[in-house]
């Protein structure tokens, strides 16, 4: 029998007995950032493809949520920092090897871009909106002229943002559960799925609803595929990653992951969306809520479980 103890009595706060440095703030931010990325990517993509008229809600209405989500996410991130007054250090450095630096700079681009996008469409929400000052009107005309460029910037940065929420975690090889490149695409798919779900909820147009139910279905399919690959990869990898996978295959996170993320967050909404595409009409609020909650749970479970997973030591 092998027994390992720290005889000098180590109990560093937030580090021992296992790492628990990141809490709801990071999980919530990864979710909000991912959903905002999904909403903006879809809006920009359909605008660039000239489908604005067909998918009016996705291009002009749903993006109004993005700046709100991003600002809430930024607040959560700020709350998480322990040396808060030095946060500006993020913006005096560019560290290409640090995903968090990429994230900080991406947010610096996409947050203003999402505000501008909303400002350009403000009359869709408030028909009598008046900018009052001439210089704002000038800005409005300026950005309208370069709307396509703005859409491209938004599309590219939204995809970076969506992937980065996963890469942020997968860059840590010290935590075997996180250390898989599947996490980037998985979080991107999950964010896109949550973004598509919101449009499904907000849209009043039948054709658009049908399209977004279809998009969400495809994304859920991709997510399931990635989850299967995630576990296949783990089980074919080193001892530490086999143990990381076992936390979800019989270990402490089995129930929460498979019930809340996979069954309630993916399989049931997928079933309901298939019914929506067919003849049975269920209140669309149900699958949408399930998809969004599943997306949130995925972030929470991965963030918490990852900190428990570690190298044999």
């Amino acid at each position, binding site marked *: *029998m092998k027994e390992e*103890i720290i005889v*000098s009595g180590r109990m560093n*706060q937030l580090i021992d007995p296992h790492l628990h440095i990141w809490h709801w703030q990071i999980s919530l931010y990864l979710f909000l950032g991912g959903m905002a990325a999904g909403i903006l990517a879809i809006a920009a993509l359909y605008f660039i493809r000239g489908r604005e008229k067909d998918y009016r809600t996705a291009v002009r209405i749903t993006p109004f949520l993005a700046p709100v989500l991003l600002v809430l996410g930024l607040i959560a991130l700020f709350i998480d920092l322990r*040396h808060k007054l030095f946060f500006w250090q993020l913006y005096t450095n560019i560290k290409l090897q640090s995903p968090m630096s990429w994230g900080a700079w991406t947010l610096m681009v996409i947050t203003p871009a999402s505000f501008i996008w909303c400002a350009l469409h403000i009359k869709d929400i408030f028909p009598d909106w008046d900018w009052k000052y001439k210089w704002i009107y000038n800005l409005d005309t300026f950005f309208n002229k370069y709307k396509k460029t703005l859409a491209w910037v938004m599309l590219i940065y939204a995809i970076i943002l969506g992937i980065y929420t996963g890469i942020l975690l997968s*860059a840590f090889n*010290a935590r075997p559960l996180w250390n898989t490149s599947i996490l980037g695409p998985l979080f991107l798919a999950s964010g896109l799925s949550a973004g598509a779900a919101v449009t499904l909820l907000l849209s009043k147009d039948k054709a658009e609803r049908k399209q977004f139910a279809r998009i969400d279905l495809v994304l859920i399919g991709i997510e399931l595929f990635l989850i299967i690959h995630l576990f296949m990869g783990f089980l074919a990898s080193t001892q530490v990653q086999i143990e990381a996978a076992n936390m979800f295959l019989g270990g402490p996170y089995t129930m929460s992951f498979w019930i809340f993320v996979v069954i309630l967050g993916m399989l049931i909404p997928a079933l309901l969306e298939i019914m929506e595409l067919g003849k049975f009409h269920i209140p669309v609020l149900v699958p949408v809520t399930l998809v969004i909650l599943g997306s949130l749970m995925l972030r929470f479970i991965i963030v918490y479980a990852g900190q428990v997973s570690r190298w044999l*030591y």
Partner: protein
Amino acid sequence: MRYAMAVDTRKCVGCSDCVVACQTENDVPIGFCRDWVVEVMDGTYPQLEIEIRSERCNHCVNAPCVRCCPTGASHIVDGGIVLVEPGECIGCGACMASCPYDARYPHPSGYVDKCTFCFHRIKNGMSPACVEVCPTKCLYFGDLDDMNSDVSVVLKKRKSKTLIPEAGTDPQLYFLI
């Protein structure tokens, strides 16, 4: 120059003097430690084997904490020592999540703190506090590029191992076995 430390697991008795010396020398806040002593007991009585290790930051060559730090607060100085600049640290936790040895901790003031190999002492030609006080003289410190340094000599004479080398960090804390 490449600073490194070797710990003789056969001489270490686990007295934890190194831990106390470090806490005193570096004003480590109460309840935290930059170094610690691990005791590994293997086998069943009477066939027992014991290994005692005084552990701390491994001052890795390929330090994941430095790679993941978004501001450059975690950096490597001359001699390969990994340090944190409190004035640049935002306390995001990325370095703590990236360390497979869990060698870092959040200082109550907000920034992240860790073993510095007593940088302020070795700059002035002294050895780290833990090495200085060790009653069994089981800690060896020095420059690996200098063939005559304590650590080079003992590493040439004895077999040694590092912790979790498979994590790809190239750790510079050696354990004599």
